[in-house]
């Protein structure tokens, strides 16, 4: 539907839905980014000079990064706006 009526995109509910989808996606990826940045910092500290001594004594182990290998998980879920009978009564998320 959006492809056929481009003006839908800019205004009204579709625009709001798009904004919410973008925001949700961003929140997830920023949370992952923060975790990975912090884990990387922690791992770096374990190997750098003054702190590696303490890390050795405390038996600190490097933290795992949160990587997504599965491409299906990484892919952005597509949003189906076609109001076909059988696909539910409204817009549905296709995972």
């Amino acid at each position, binding site marked *: 539907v959006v492809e056929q009526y481009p003006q839908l995109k800019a205004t009204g509910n579709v625009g709001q839905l798009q*904004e919410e989808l973008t*925001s949700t996606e961003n*929140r997830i990826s*920023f*949370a992952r*980014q*923060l975790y990975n*940045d912090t884990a990387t*910092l922690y791992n770096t500290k374990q190997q750098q000079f003054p702190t590696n001594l303490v890390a050795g004594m405390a038996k600190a182990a490097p933290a795992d990064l949160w990587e997504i290998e599965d491409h299906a998980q990484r892919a952005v879920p597509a949003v189906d706006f076609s109001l076909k009978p059988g696909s539910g009564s409204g817009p549905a998320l296709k995972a």
Partner: protein
Amino acid sequence: VSAESLNLFQQQEANRRRTTWLVIGFILFFAWLGFGGDFIVSRYTATAPPEAYHHQVPWIGALLTLVAVILAVYAYRTGPEKVLWATGARELDAPRSDAERQLVNVVEEMAIAAGLPRPRIWLVPDHDPNAFATGRDPARSHLAVTEGLLAVCNRDELQGVIGHELGHIKNLDVRLMTTLAALVGAVLLIQDGVLRALRGGARLGGGGGAGGGGRGGKKGGAGPLLAILVVVWVLSWLLAPLITQVLALAVSRKREYLADAMAAQFTRNPLALASALEKIEHSHEPTRAIKRGAAHLCIADPLGRRLTNREGFLADALATHPPMAMRISRLKGMGYAQLKRESGQTV
């Protein structure tokens, strides 16, 4: 990227320490104004005849120091509210338009990226794009943007600007700069009041002025040291606002680069902030809602001063912000390095 996070704790510690020194310096300065005055008056009245007034109790100094302590505590406590009040900002608690909804979303996203609690969001009714953050600590911080910024920036650029402000919050820059803003405001206010009182006093005491001059002439033998002291004392009264301004400048320039770098770390998109800065730069209008006292809090100099465009000794001494061109070129450098890395990975 992680070079900035490595010295985050040092940066926070430095800002805590600087805030403390700022408050101590402020109180000491007022103590000097007060006790210096006491000393001068006591020297002048020391040779007065026995029945005349002798200034022995340094009550001016005690009073001014007390006022300074109260002011500093008050400034530290209510600084954020005062700054927001001075800019006429209104809190955005229930977004009414799509642009406001987007702003709330972007702030929440960037708070996640920065690992901070979400700051309270304020809108400044002004058409010039600008933004600032204030607050005492990350848990109770405020983030304000102008309506012009919402109109001018796209989503990515808004992210860059908000990331920059959250960088200031995370560094505890906001504590130092807000306290400074409140103290600058207090000094300006006091000086205005004192000057008005002096002018009023001069007008009232116009007849007595000649007699006063004669009395001063008789004490001419008090010594050159005292004369120098008097000159320095009067100068420090007159220069107080200038000194606080220079302090505000010295405090704010380096950390703009740092906050830019942190925004790049949070968004992973330095080019968006660079283009936002270009847009802010190209709107030549000064941000009228933001007054002098809060200028150093903003992402770009709200007064639109020409000094901000230059490097060099004078600009280094007098501008609150580093030259926009330098900031933009640094961000672009980061952006291109990132693009290079990414293309290297995919090949």
